[in-house]
């Protein structure tokens, strides 16, 4: 911040001047002007579809603006491809990871720029050494030779970040880099970002997490419906100011969990284990209760959710639904017993990207309703889906729209709708608001609260501490595959949870 004031002569690192971009029928960006100074973190906020990603794609050379221009250190910059952007010192970390799953960490980082020997063969030892050095700078404990697909999502994201850093870029674009990271991993990333900033690198930082802004950003710009709403310093803004700028309307008050009407036990686990993943997990989940599950990546919480839903077979222990022991050999069996599951990985195991919103919504309920003699009662299914779409306020041009064309928040709502159509008594939600904008997030929280008030039992895994604290009646904390504590709402504080999660 101070540096920017002290060097008034030096032109800004990047200036975006009057940039507009429209896709057929839609204006994605209209006359956006903003500047990124050397050695600063410039946060971009906005709801899904506000134009942040389009703007960043223009800066990264992925698309070209219809009008307006970019100036890099005072000189006009014309980018025809991401390659030209990289050559100009601009690197982007994509929201959707662009990695090669069957190649090693080091190969992924240096792809296309491998060190070669005289015979033009790849010098693997040198390749791995360079990758290791880079990962050490990020303070990431990863084997450069590990095959990428064997790594968890958080580690893959670190590889993507390492790759962007490997270009020695002056301008780095980060599109929601923390959406798949735990708090500890995010902290590590922030340290790296601060280090880069102190070396003069300018960073565009797109995020949905307002907490991060105050920790990290030097300037905040807000986009809404493709227009630049304003730019300020974080210290001049409150959380509510930012939300108001982004949404352009008043948001419903933050969801607070209704007092638990401790109903009967809906779901319980006794000594549940999956070898190598988690061990001896026991808990009881009551009807009308939200049991939050907190823990760092690798704590086994997602594997636990998958086991409860029949995706993974337990190696020991017992699951009880409504008091009777069950053996769930498949998700189909779990759904028929009244379970619903929201996956943490929307793209991998959630959406059918090539299919319509309707087809994505109805698929689970077809195992039970709207089918006679194998034939789908199309009108009935459509009506139910229409009701669900309007109840969840999914923004889509129609039920026939491909789900691929919806924003992340709306895709998430469709997946939640898919669960709800089967009318589950027990909902297992794994990161229900990951990569979702503030507006949609508040709506999802309200929806969960309503369901719980109506007697649904909810097991909610989340990496976001505010979400865990605001929503849960009780919080179960996991660490390296074991339950380290179950806290009542009154006793659940951030410090206490972190203590149990990271001991």
């Amino acid at each position, binding site marked *: 911040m101070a540096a920017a004031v002290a060097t008034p002569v030096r032109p800004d690192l990047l200036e975006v001047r009057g940039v507009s971009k429209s*896709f*057929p*029928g*839609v*204006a*994605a960006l209209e006359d956006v002007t903003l500047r990124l100074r050397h050695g600063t973190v410039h946060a971009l906020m906005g*709801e*899904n*579809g*506000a*134009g942040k*990603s*389009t703007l960043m794609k223009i800066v990264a050379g992925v698309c070209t603006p219809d009008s307006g221009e970019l100036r890099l250190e005072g000189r006009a910059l014309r980018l025809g491809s991401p390659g030209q952007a990289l050559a100009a010192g601009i690197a982007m970390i994509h*929201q*959707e990871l662009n990695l090669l799953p069957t190649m090693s960490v080091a190969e992924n980082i240096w792809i296309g720029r491998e060190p070669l020997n005289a015979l033009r063969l790849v010098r693997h030892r040198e390749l791995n050494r360079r990758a290791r050095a880079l990962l050490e700078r990020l303070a990431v404990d990863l084997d450069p030779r590990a095959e990428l697909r064997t790594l968890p999502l958080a580690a893959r994201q670190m590889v993507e970040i390492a790759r962007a850093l490997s270009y020695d870029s002056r301008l780095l674009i980060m599109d929601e880099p923390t959406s798949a990271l735990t708090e500890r991993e995010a902290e590590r990333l922030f340290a790296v970002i601060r280090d880069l900033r102190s070396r003069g690198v300018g960073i565009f930082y797109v995020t949905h997490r307002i907490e991060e802004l105050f920790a990290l950003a030097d300037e905040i710009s807000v986009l809404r*419906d*493709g227009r630049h709403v304003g730019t300020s310093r974080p210290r001049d803004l409150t959380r509510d100011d930012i939300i108001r700028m982004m949404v352009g309307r008043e948001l419903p008050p933050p969801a607070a969990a209704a007092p638990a009407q401790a109903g009967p036990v809906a779901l319980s686990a006794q000594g549940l284990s999956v070898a190598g993943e988690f061990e001896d997990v026991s808990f009881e989940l009551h009807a009308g209760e939200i049991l939050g599950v907190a823990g760092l990546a690798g704590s086994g919480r997602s594997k636990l959710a998958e086991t409860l*839903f029949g*995706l993974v077979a337990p190696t020991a222990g017992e699951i009880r639904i409504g008091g009777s022991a069950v053996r769930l050999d*498949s*998700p*189909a069996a*779990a*759904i*028929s017993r009244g379970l619903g*599951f929201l*996956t943490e990985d929307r793209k*991998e*195991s*959630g*959406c*059918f*990207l*090539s*299919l319509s919103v309707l*087809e994505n919504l*109805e*698929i*689970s309920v*077809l*195992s039970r309703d709207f*089918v006679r003699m*194998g*034939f*789908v009662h*199309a009108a009935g299914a459509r009506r139910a889906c229409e009701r669900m779409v309007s109840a969840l306020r999914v*923004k*889509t*041009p129609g039920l*026939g729209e*491909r789900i*691929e*064309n*919806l*924003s*992340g928040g*709306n895709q998430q709502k469709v997946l939640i709708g*898919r669960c709800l159509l*089967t009318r589950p008594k027990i909902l297992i939600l794994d990161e229900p608001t990951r990569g979702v904008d503030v507006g949609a997030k508040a709506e999802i929280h309200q929806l969960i609260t309503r369901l719980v008030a109506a007697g649904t039992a909810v097991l909610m895994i989340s990496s976001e501490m505010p979400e865990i604290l605001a929503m849960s009646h009780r919080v179960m904390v996991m660490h390296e595959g074991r339950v380290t504590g179950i806290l009542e709402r009154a006793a659940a504080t951030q410090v206490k949870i972190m203590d149990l999660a990271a001991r």
Partner: protein
Amino acid sequence: MQPALADRTAPSATAARVRRLPPEAGILLVLIALALAFELLGWIFVHQSFLANEQRLVIMILQVSVIGVIAVGVTQVIITGGIDLSSGSVVALTAMVAASLAQSSEAVRAVYPALIDLPAIVPVAAGLAVGAAAGLVNGTLIASTGIPPFIATLGVMVSARGLAKWYTRGQPVSMLTDPYAAIGSGAVPVVVFLATALLFHVALRHTRYGKFTYAIGANREAARVAGIRVGRHLVLVYAIAGLLSGLAGVLTSARAVSGQAGMGLMYELDAIAAAVIGGASLSGGVGRITGTVIGTLILGVVTSGFTFLRIDAYYQEIVKGGIIVAAVVADQYRRRRRLTAT
């Protein structure tokens, strides 16, 4: 990919109109263009009409009906994201088995001297059963071992061809009963093809079976999470594809009034080509029977058109390969343009 479209409720009028065209529209135009091209070339080079010849059109559809029946099954396999290389060999095997049970008393050395002059339903049922069994093997291999469909069906392709040869030690099976031969004569194969296509068109669009088939191809893991018993469903899809190959085997042997182990050679590739020309995507989740029917007709028009122009059979194959690739390239180009437009 985060198109801003999602937040606007009304896409422009032109966008909506473009979207309402069925995906087969493009490939139907290719079919019409090819037919008109042959018509034009016909007047120039051989001085007669290509299309205004009922007999030629009937023969053309008759020739591709068997491929069409197979392609209907293969399309469903492709929609799941799989592939079936075994169809051609299964045609041979089922043709042999069906023919061996359809021999008349005039046969000099019948395969089963005790089983002659059986009603036609017996060989037909046997052919269908053997086809379904082959498909069941494909599906079970894929679902239970997790090996890629390419490998599983490649294995069955080789073995089924071997079985077809072993069955009579390479001897052709001839002297079939008249009722059986009737199945392959006249317009019967065409009717069977169109009925099969209609049946599975409805099944894919309007039944749970169809919905699950598309879902598995679009995202197998998501399908499992959504509560579909993926393995069981795949076995069913491959069994149906096998059954239809069996039906094709019955038609082939009835039409030739014999069973030969060399029947159905390369049919699997023609069937895959028909499905892919018709818009089915080998990466799964996309494909329609109507497209496949048009794809089948394109193959028929090309073969029949070249014969009509008296072009050497060698050239025919060379050009046919090019047309298959060109059709798919054109289709992908069209799709990509639509994708970037959104």
